[in-house]
Structures are given as C-alpha cells and as structure tokens.
C-alpha cells in the first residue's frame, strides 16, 4: 500500500531558476555556440569555404560571426541592464569562497562519480563558482575585443584585440566543454542537474540537496518545496 501511495505522490521538486533566467541562458548558449563554431571554422583555415551554418543563413562565415557577435553583445548588455540584480548576485556569489569549500574540493573527484559531494554553503557549488568566473570573464573579454575588432577594422589596435579574442577563445572552449559535460548530467554525480536550466527549471529536491544543500535549506526554510515557484534570488 505504502509503495503504491508513494508512486502516486509526485516527487518533491524545487525551482532553481525562473523563466527569465532560463531564456537568457538559452539565448546566451545558442549565440555562443554559433560564435564558437564559426570562430573555430575560420581559425582552422576554412575561411572561404562556407560552413553548414553559412549555407543555412546565406552569408559568409565571417559576416555570420560578426552579426551573431552583435546579437550576443546586445543580449549581454540587455541582461546586465534589465537583470542587474541577478547579474550582481551572480558576481558576488561566484567570487565568495569559504574555508569549508576546501572540503568540497577534496571530495569532488570521487563525488563526480558517487554523488557524495562535500557540503558547501553557497548558491553555487565551489566548482561552479570557479567556472562562472572563467566563463563570465572570457565572454566579457570576447565581447570587448570583438567590438574592438570591428571598430578599428585593422592596424596595431586590431592586432591587440585579435590576440585577446583568440586567447579568450582558447580559454573559453575547454571551460565551456567542461560546463556542458557537468551541466548535462552525464556524470553520475551531476545526474539531473540539467533540469535546473531547462523545462521549467524544476529539479528533484534530492538532486538539489546533493548539489546545493544550503541553498535548498534556505528555500525550504520559507515554504514547502512544492510551493517554491520562485527562487530565493531573481536569477
């Protein structure tokens, strides 16, 4: 009986991110993926040979990269202007590290496979915070250098912007690959994490407890998990 009843009861869920955050995240990763694809296509010497995306949009890869770059820059600017509170929260939470985080790092290699992470008190886990700093930093450098590249078109300043743009890409690419692997939930320890940013942003409390225990406790301290329609912070 008890088993049948527990089957009928929906699992406790909690919403990690609101709709505005999820749409912003989707816009960012769609534009960034197009930019990475076209950017690497050109970097690997394929300029002049239309890529799949170039043929799809009907413009050269260089033009596509530039235009999508402007869209991404506009998206980032809008995100900061309209979601300044969330942006500030992201920055503050990402640069705050505690001594207790060391324990989390010590257990992380094994926890990736077992799911038995050390406790942390942050909105983001310590690894996520490092990733946030790298991703936001490199994306910011790419926006600034990208705008610089199209503004000066050539000359000594172009050479400098080009170096910044390239090296930011070299740093961003493996970091983003790591972020995708972790966030996709293919690693046992991060199973279910992808729901935090997709399909309503709702995830099981068991997943939230495993990844962000203190955040979940703060959520549960105010209301029942089922009623948590809005996250603790507007992000």
């Amino acid at each position, binding site marked *: 009986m008890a088993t049948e009843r527990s089957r009928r009861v929906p699992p406790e869920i909690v919403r990690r991110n609101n709709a505005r955050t999820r749409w912003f995240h989707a816009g960012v990763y769609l534009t960034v993926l197009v930019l990475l694809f076209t950017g690497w296509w050109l970097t690997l010497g394929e300029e002049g040979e239309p890529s799949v995306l170039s043929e799809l949009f009907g413009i050269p890869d260089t033009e596509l990269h530039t235009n999508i770059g402007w869209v991404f820059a*506009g998206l980032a600017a809008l995100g900061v202007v309209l979601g300044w509170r969330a942006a500030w929260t992201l920055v503050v939470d990402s640069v705050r590290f505690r001594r207790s985080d060391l324990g989390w790092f010590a257990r992380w290699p094994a926890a990736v496979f077992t799911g038995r992470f050390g406790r942390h008190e942050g909105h983001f886990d310590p690894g996520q915070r490092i990733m946030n700093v790298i991703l936001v930093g490199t994306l910011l450098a790419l926006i600034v250098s990208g705008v610089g590249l199209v503004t000066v078109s050539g000359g000594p300043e172009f050479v400098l912007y080009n170096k910044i743009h390239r090296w930011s890409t070299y740093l961003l690419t493996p970091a983003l690959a790591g972020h995708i692997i972790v966030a996709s939930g293919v690693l046992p320890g991060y199973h279910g994490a992808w729901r935090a940013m997709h399909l309503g942003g709702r995830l099981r409390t068991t997943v939230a407890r495993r990844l962000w225990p203190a955040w979940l406790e703060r959520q549960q301290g105010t209301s029942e998990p089922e009623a948590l329609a809005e996250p603790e912070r507007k992000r």
Partner: protein
Amino acid sequence: MTKRVRISVLLGALVLVGASACGSDEASGSGGSGSGSGGSGGSGGMTVSIAEPADGSSVQMPFQVKVNSSVELGTTESGKHHVHLYFDGDDSKYEVVESDTVEVSSSSKSAQGLSPGKHEMNISLRNADHSPAGAETKIMVDIGGTGGGAPQPAPTSGGYGY
C-alpha cells in the same frame, strides 16, 4: 509593464542590435567597384587591381593571379588588409590572398566545381576584420581544364588562345 510587453521590447531591441550590425556592414561595403584589370578606388583612396592574368586571357589550371594593391597585404593577425578572390560574383566561396600572388587550382575553394569556359574573376580588398575596404575589381578569364604540372602564369597583356 506586462510580461508579454517586456518580452516584446527585449526581442525588438535584439532585432535592432542585429539590424544595426548588418547595416554597418553594408555601409562599409559601399565603396567603389569597377571592372577591368585597371582596378578601382574605394573609400580612403585605396585601390586594387589584377595584374595577372590579363582581362580576357585564357588560362589553364593551375594558374597564378597577381594582385596590385595600394595598401600592404598580410595576414589577419598582422592587422593588414587582404584580398578575397572569387568567381562569377559568388563571394560565398573565395580565396584569401595575403600577398601579391596566389595560385588558383581546381582544388581551390573558389574554383571547386568551376566548369571550363569563360568566367568572371572578382577580387575585393578587405580590412583585417574581413569587412569590405571599398575597392574591388573584376576581369574575364577563359579557364581551361586541369593541365597538371607546374603553375602556368598568364600573360600580362592581351588575350590569347591555348
């Protein structure tokens, strides 16, 4: 402001940003253009021309193209200008010319699938960021089949049969 209106404003702003980017590209590409190996001047008085092969000449794959530019050509990393070379006005497939000569062969990006016969050969001077620098030109060439062997420079003046 309702949620729907807010989303509309966001989307509108994004479209405006994208449109302004496209508009600036077109504006920068509105420089001079012309035909013939004499080349053409564009914004800032920059000129580019095709020294070899001559307009109307016949060439055999592979062949060398010699470009005369009023500005120094180089790689993107150097911040210098470069030239896009393409055929029949199709600038989606092109060669990147970073010095005054380039060899065009049947395996070149711009010449893949190019049938033997008369074709328009276009060149466009580009800024380091690939935007048009405002100078471009075109000539007619009669392209033969793949000849194999070493590159065969085309004559510097006048057309001839092969």
